[in-house]
C-alpha cells in the first residue's frame, strides 16, 4: 500500500490562497486505509480550510468528493462536472492520483494536499512502516522475506555494516537492523547458507535508473 500524510495546514492554505472555489478530492484506496485521504479526511480538511478562510475573512466555496481510485482515468472522469465549477483541485491522493487529475484536467491547477511517503504495511493500528522500495528485481526470496533495500538504511546487499549493534541500526535505536532481522529469520528457517552466498552488485536499472518505468501487458492493451 502507498502511504501518505497530510501536509501542514499552513502549506495547503498557502497553495490555495488565490482561489475562490476549491474542489477537494479524496481517494478510496491506499490513502483511505492509511487515514490520509479518505472520505473522512476530506471532510476534516474541508472543515479546517473553511474555518481558516472564515477566520482570514476570505470565505471560499469548498466542494468535497471522494473517488474510488484517483489513478484510473475512468474514475477520474467522474469529476468532470465538479471540476468545471472549481478554480482549483486539491487532491488528497498519493502523487499518482494528483498527476492523473492534472493529466485529465489540463486547464485546472491541481494541488497536492498530501505528502506521499512510501510503500508500506501497517505494523499495528495507526503505525505504518516502509517495506518496499520498488526496485524492480525482488530479492526477498534469498533474504528471508526482509527487504535490505527498503529496510537497511544503507541499502546494503551483503550483510550489515559496522554500525549494527544490539540488533539496531546506528541511525536510530528505533530502527531494526535489517540484516539482523534477515539473519534471525534465515537461522529460524535453517537457511543460513543463503546468507553466505554473495549477492552480485545490484542492477539499479529496473529500479528507475533507466528512466521512468512502465509495464506493458500486451494481452490487456486495447
Amino acid at each position, binding site marked *: 500500500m502507498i502511504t501518505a500524510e497530510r501536509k501542514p495546514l499552513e502549506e495547503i492554505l498557502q497553495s490555495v490562497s488565490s482561489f475562490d472555489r476549491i474542489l477537494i478530492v479524496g481517494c*478510496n*484506496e491506499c490513502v*483511505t*486505509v492509511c*487515514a490520509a485521504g*479518505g*472520505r*473522512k*479526511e476530506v*471532510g476534516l480538511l474541508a472543515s479546517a480550510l473553511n474555518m481558516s478562510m472564515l477566520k482570514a475573512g476570505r470565505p471560499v466555496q469548498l466542494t468535497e468528493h*471522494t473517488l474510488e481510485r484517483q489513478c484510473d482515468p475512468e474514475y477520474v472522469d467522474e469529476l468532470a462536472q465538479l471540476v468545471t465549477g472549481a478554480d482549483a483541485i486539491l487532491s488528497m491522493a498519493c502523487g499518482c492520483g494528483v498527476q492523473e487529475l492534472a493529466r485529465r484536467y489540463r486547464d485546472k491547477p491541481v494541488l497536492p494536499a498530501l505528502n506521499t511517503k512510501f510503500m508500506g504495511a*501497517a505494523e499495528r*493500528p495507526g503505525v505504518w512502516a516502509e517495506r518496499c522500495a520498488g526496485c524492480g528485481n525482488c530479492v526477498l526470496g534469498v533474504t528471508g522475506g526482509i527487504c535490505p533495500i527498503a529496510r537497511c538504511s544503507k541499502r546494503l546487499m551483503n550483510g550489515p555494516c559496522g554500525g549494527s549493534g544490539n540488533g539496531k541500526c546506528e541511525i536510530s535505536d528505533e530502527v531494526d537492523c535489517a540484516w539482523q532481522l534477515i539473519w534471525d529469520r534465515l537461522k529460524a528457517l535453517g537457511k543460513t547458507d543463503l546468507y553466505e552466498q554473495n549477492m552480485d552488485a545490484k542492477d539499479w536499472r529496473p529500479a528507475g535508473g533507466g528512466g521512468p518505468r512502465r509495464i506493458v501487458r500486451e494481452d490487456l492493451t486495447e
Partner: protein
Amino acid sequence: MTHPETSKTPGKVLVVGGGMGGIRTALDLAESGRDVVLIDRSASIGGLMTQLDRTFPTNNCDLCTLSPHLSEAGRALHIDLRTLTEVTAVSGGAGSFQVTLTTAPRHIDLDRCTACGDCLRAHPECVTFTPGLDHRAPTCMRYPRSIPQAYSIDLARCSDLEDLVACCPLGAIRPQEDPVVVQETFGAVVLSPGADVYDPTPIATLGYSLFPDVVTSLEYERILSASGPTGGKLQRPSDGSAPKKVAWLQCVGSRARRSEHGHSYCSSACCMFAIKEAIVTKERFGAQIETTIFNMDIRTSGKGYEAYYQRAKDESGIRFVRCRTQNLTASADGALALRYLPEDQDAFLTENFDMVVLSTGFVVGPRLRELADIFGVDTNDHGFARTDSFHPVSTSRDGVFVAGLFEGPKDIPETMVQGSAAACMATGLVPAAAPRPSDEDLPPERDVTGEPLRVGVFVCECGENIGGVLDVQSLVDHAGRLTDVVLSENVGYGCSAESMEHIRATIAREGLNRVLIGGCSPRTHLARFQDLLRRAGINRYLVDIANLRDQDAWVHRTSPELATAKGRDLLSMGVAAARQARPLADHTLPMSQQVLVVGGGVAGMSAALALAERGLRVHLVEREARLGGEALKLRRTLEGEDVRAGVKVLVEATEAQDLIQVHTSAIIVDHSGLPGKLKTGMQVGPQLFYRQIEHGATVLATGAMANRPSLYLLGQHEAVSTQHDMESLLEEEPTQVLGWSKVVMIQCVGSRTPENPDCSRICCQSAVKNALRILRINPQARIWVLYRDLRTLGMQENAYAQARQQGVMFVRYDPGSPPQVEADGEALRVVFHDPILGDDIGLRADRVLLSTGMVPDEEAAEELARIFRLPRTQEGYLLEDHRKLRPVDLPTMGYYVAGTAASPKSIKESIAQAQAAASRVQTLLARGAINLGAAVARVDSSRCAACLVCVRACPYDVPFINADGASQIDPALCHGCGVCAAECPAKAISLQQFDDEQILAKLEGLFERRTA
C-alpha cells in the same frame, strides 16, 4: 418460553388497592403472564400519590412520573381494573379463594364517558371526583389524568336528575344503576389498600378546626399542586394572601405518648415530606419565604435523603428547630402564634407564622381494620398487617400477601419494592395464563419513504415542571416556524393517557411522518413515545424528544428567559434531526432463561429461592466459602426474631433446591454478551478453575460491609466495640455484661459524615435493640445513647419508647462538638455535652459501643460495577434506574439489585427487595425474546475500503471482511456503540438512529438562527 404448570386451569390474582403499590403488583403480575383483577374503592386508581405535588428527593412532579404507570395499567390486557369496588366476603384458602366483590354504581357508562366535563359544569353539586382533601377548599379534581378517564355521580346530592341525564351529550349517565355483587375465585390475594391519614382535629392545642391557616401536609400538598384548589398558587386559605412565614410541625399524631394525641409509632415518611414541601415552597414561591420545621428528630434515612436534608439546611436556608411545639393561638394581626420551648433555651418563645402545616402521619382506620377482619389476617396493636423479617410480605393467612402502608408506615420506594415482592409471592400460587394472541392490535405500518416531510411538534407543559420556567407558547410558536413543521402545539402532560391518545389521533389525522416531543428525558420516555408512533401507524423511530425538562427547565429555574431561548435551540435541533430520521427495523433475540444471582447472603439466597421455586434455573455465586453473608454475624432482630435460625433455613433450602447451582469461593472475572444472552466468567475454588455461565438476567445482591472507622479508640481499646460486635457477645458471654455498670453508645460513627454522607438506617434500631438486650441481662446497667437524630422508623419507635421507659438515657450531640472518649485503665472516660442541662458531663464507662453502620464493600463493589458496567452513587452503592419508582431495576435492562448493595437496610427490607428482584426477573424472562432496538451499525459496502479499521476498533469483535471484500456487521451481534462509525476513514459505516446526518443536523439546527 414456558412456566411450570401447577394446575390445569390457571387462576387469577386479586389485588386490593390501586395505589402505587397495587399498580406495581398488578403490572409485575401482568408482565409475567398472570391474570389480575385490580380493585379500588375509589372512582380512579393512583391512591395517595396522586394527591402529592412532587416527591422527594428528586422534587419530581408525581403526575408526570405516575401517569405513565397508570396508562400502562389501563392498557395491559391481563389486568381487569374495577374501581368503586370492595371485598365484602372471603372463603377458601391459598390456591382457591372465593371472594365476593361489590361494585358501587358509578352512574356513568365508562364506555361512553369521555370526561368532557359537561356534567360537572351543569351540576357541580353531584358530579364527584374523590372529594377534595382540603376541608375548606372547594371540591377539586383529585387528579386530572385519572384512570379510568371518567367522572362518577353522587345521586344522593343530585337535585334535578332529569336535567343531569339530559346534559350529557353522549348519554352516558345511568341513574338506575345498582351495586353489582359477584363471587370469583382467586389463587392468591395481595392487599395493598394503603393507609389513612391521621385527622388532627382531636389535638385541641393545634387549632386545626379553629384556624383555617392550619392545614395538614396533604392539604398543603394540594395547595401547591397545579391541579389543586388554588391552581398551584400558594395562598392562605383564610384570606388568599401569600404567606411570608410557614411552619411545619412534625409528628402530629405520630410518636405520641398519650393515645388522645395519636399513635405511638413513627410514620416514617413525614420528615422528608415536610422538607420537600419547604424546599418547594422556597423554590417556587420565593426564597424569601421563611420556612421552619419544628421536629424532635429529623429522620432522613433513605438513599440520598441525608444529602437532601443537608441541602435543605445549608443551601435552601430552611430552619430546623428541635422541639415539640406547645400550642397555637391566634395573634392580633391574623397570624398564628406558636408557643414553643427550644431545646437549648430555658424559657418558652412565641413566634408568629402566616401558615402552619401539620405533618400528619399514617393510621389504620376502621375500613382497613374491617378489611383485615374479612381476610382474617393478623394485625399488630396499631392495626397494620403482621409480617416477619424472613417473610416480609406474607400475612398470617396462607396465600394472602401485603404491600405498602398497610404493612407498616413507609415511603414510596419501600412500597414499590413490596409491591413487586408481593407479586413474586403470588406467582408461586398462580401459574401463567395462556399467552394472548397479541397483546395489542397494531395498525399496519405506513411506508413514509418518499412522502414529503410533515413534522409535528408537541410541547409538554408538564405542569410547573416545564411551564413554570419556560414560555411554552413562545416555544410552540417557534417550532411552528421551523422547516417542514406542519403542526406545533402545547399538549400539557404529553405522557398522560389523554394526551397520548390526542397525539396518536393527530398523527393519523394530519398524516404526520416525523414527530418531535418537547418534554422530558428521552432516557425515560422515548420508548413510550416510540410505542405511540407505532400505534399511530408509523415507524417507531420517527420520533425524538427535546429534553426541555431535565436539561432545561429544571437546571435554569432562575433565568427563565435564557431557559426559553435554550428551549428554542433544543426544539430547532430536534426538528432538524427529526427531518433526517428514517424508518428502521428492530432486532430481536431469544433470551436465556437462566438467572445469575451474585452474592450468597440473605438477599441473594432469597432471590435465588424465589426464582427457583418459580421454575427458573439459577446460578448463585458467592465469593466466600459458605453461604450466609453478613447476616451470619447477627443474632436477633429488634423484634426478637432468631436471625441465626432464619439464615439456617435459607441456607438449607438453597442448598436443597435442584434448580439452584451454588458456586462458592467464586470470583467473577468477566462479563460479556448481549442483553438476554449474557456470559459471565468466574474463577472457582482454591484452584481458580475458570467457568462460564450463560444467563438472561442478573441480580446483584453483593451486600455492604460493616463499617469499622478508626474513631473513638475502636481497635485500640478493649472496651470499645461496635454494635455489630455485640451480637454474639450478648448471646454467648452474658456474664461479661453483668460486670458493666455504665455503657455509652455513640451513634452516627462514620455515617452522615462528609466521607459517608448517607445515614446507615439500621444503627439507631441496633442501639435500641442492644440497650434493651443489655438491660435484660443486667437490669442494673446504666446506658447512655449519644445521638444526632434518633431514627427508629415505624414500629421501631415503640422499642425506643420502651428503652426510655426502662431508663436508657438518650442525649443528643452536635456533630460540631462530638463526644470525647479517652482510655481510663480498663475503662473509658467519656465526656459529652448535654443540651438539656446545658453542661458537659463526664463519666467512666465500662464499655463504649459505636454504631458504625454500613459502607459499600469498596473493593468488591467497584470491581463488580466495572465488570457489569453498572453505575454507582457517589457513596459507592449501586444506582437504581429511578430512586422512587424503580428501586429494584438498575439502569441497564436485565440487571436488578437486592439488599444492601443498593443501600443500608434491614434483613426484612433486604428479603423484600430480593423477592421484588425475582419478580422483576420473571417479568423480563416471560417475554421470551429481547428487543435490541434498531441502533446498529450498517455498512455501505460500495464505500468500504476494507481497511480493517472497524474490525480492529469494535470492542465486541463483530465486524469482519466478507467474501466480497467489504466489512460486514451482524445486527444481532452489534451492541450499537457506534465506535466503528466514528473511526471508519471511508465514512462507510453509519449507526442507525444516531447517523451523521442526524447529529450534524442538530448542529445545523442549533446554529441556524445565528448564521441566518
